[in-house]
């Protein structure tokens, strides 16, 4: 149902007046909230020029924001690649004909989807740091990537599975008819089509990866939030610094979300008898931090 059009009639003169009044009241309330926030910030001296002027200096960007952003993008970028690989392996594993493979893949996927990403990050950070397998200073970076890969890879495995389930049965039957084995048919016929159907959901998952990379802040990985906090402590402008960091995240994620929406509109033309992969229908991935 497209709620926007049917929940109310085409407004007549009285309804238009009510909407106009509601509109004005709404704007006034929004302005009141905004005013309250601005006044509270101003009262604590957060809106003075000296609080914000560091963002006009190139050294702020050169030594704090850009290195932080680079580290964030690096962790997120590598995690995206590894998570997709993990998701493909375990998604196909869950569709296998062999019961033990299905069972193991299923357990792994369900386990890592149920455990908070932060717990995994802290565990790998401390465990790797002590084990001597990696240099102690690399431990946070590697822990961020492993934790993001395990969690998001498991979600992507579910996306692959539901993408393949959403294909018309004829695809699989055609594969069998020309004598392909189950795994050949999955690899060459079903998964490639499922990947296209799950593209919007996949891009939305990239937003989750990017957001969750900020958890690295807690395990001392020097990502954007960590750097902006240092900047804020150094310059005495914690609130402006955090707001700038949040804005950078919002801009990037909003662009990715818009891309996901565009893709789903674009792909809705080509799906024939094929169900698109809806992220909302999958358990527990919609709103990870």
């Amino acid at each position, binding site marked *: *149902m497209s*709620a*926007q059009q*049917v*929940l*109310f*009639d085409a*407004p007549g003169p009285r*309804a238009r007046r009510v909407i106009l009044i*509601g*509109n*004005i009241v*709404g*704007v006034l309330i*929004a302005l009141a909230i905004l005013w309250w926030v601005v006044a509270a*910030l101003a009262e*604590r001296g*957060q809106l003075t020029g000296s609080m914000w002027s560091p963002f006009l200096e190139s050294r702020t960007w050169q030594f704090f924001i850009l290195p932080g952003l680079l580290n964030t993008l690096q962790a997120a970028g590598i995690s995206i690649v590894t998570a997709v690989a993990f998701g493909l392996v375990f998604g196909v594993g869950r569709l296998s004909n062999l019961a033990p493979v299905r069972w193991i893949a299923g357990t792994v996927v*369900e*386990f890592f989807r*149920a*455990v*908070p*990403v*932060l*717990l*995994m990050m*802290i*565990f790998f950070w*401390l*465990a790797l740091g*002590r084990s001597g397998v990696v240099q102690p200073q690399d431990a946070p970076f590697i822990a961020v990537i492993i934790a993001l890969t395990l969690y998001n890879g498991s979600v992507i495995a579910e996306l692959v599975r539901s993408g393949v389930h959403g294909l018309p049965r004829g695809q699989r039957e055609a594969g069998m008819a020309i004598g392909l084995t189950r795994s050949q048919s999955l690899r060459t016929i079903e998964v490639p089509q499922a990947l296209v159907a799950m593209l919007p959901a996949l891009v939305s998952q990239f937003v989750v990866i*990017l*957001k*969750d*990379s*900020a*958890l690295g*802040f*807690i395990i001392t990985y020097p990502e954007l*939030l960590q750097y902006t*906090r240092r900047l804020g402590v150094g310059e005495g402008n*914690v609130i402006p610094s*955090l707001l700038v*960091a*949040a804005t950078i*995240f*919002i801009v990037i*994620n*909003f662009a990715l*979300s818009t891309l996901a929406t565009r893709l789903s509109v674009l792909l809705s033309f080509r799906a024939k008898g094929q169900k698109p992969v809806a992220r*909302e*229908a999958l*358990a*527990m*991935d*919609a*709103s*990870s*931090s």
Partner: protein
Amino acid sequence: MENYLSLFETYDVPAAFWVNIQLSFWAAIFALVIGTVLALFRISPIPSLQWFGAAYVNIFRNTPLTIILAFGFLGLFSVMQVSLAGDLNASLFRIAIVGLALYHAAFVCEAIRSGVNTVPLGQAEAARAIGLGFLPAARLVILPQAFRGAIAPLGNVLIALIKNSTVAAAGSVATESSSLMKTMIEFRSDLVIPIFLTFALGFVILVIPIGLLTTWASRKLAVAR
């Protein structure tokens, strides 16, 4: 084994989980209320409210929860000196609840909107035909069906909220389970893996029944069409 059991004498693991459950419980209630209001805004005929709802969802959905909760501690608590309780720890705890609620409200709003999308057009038309205005139609016809259609996605938000309550560590709520796990691993490096598995299992036990329950409830309560 005795070594492992001695952990529970030194550290109160259930108490840490209890903190996460409390954080999730209060945040879930506030998020449900705020999210429902936002969903109403987004489907209302008033443009400024629609715009406000959309802006809220886009801002909070795209901000990392870590930043929101870190802001609660570094910004609200330290700089703005916001205090929600007389006691320091209780105040941080409540600020974390506010942060969790504000963040998850955006996802509750989207879950309810997806529930509204499951209500057939004829329902809204019928409501209008018998003369109901926007608010009565929403209250009596649309939302009751939308909530039933939204149970599965709302369950997913609740599960995410429980797992995300560990991020309260970024808001200096030091009694919750991820902080306790960190302390335990630091002091008992001989038992790193058992400690992690204990906490992981705790969350599996918390989260999986909720998943099963909401799946069952969403089937049971689905409006037959």
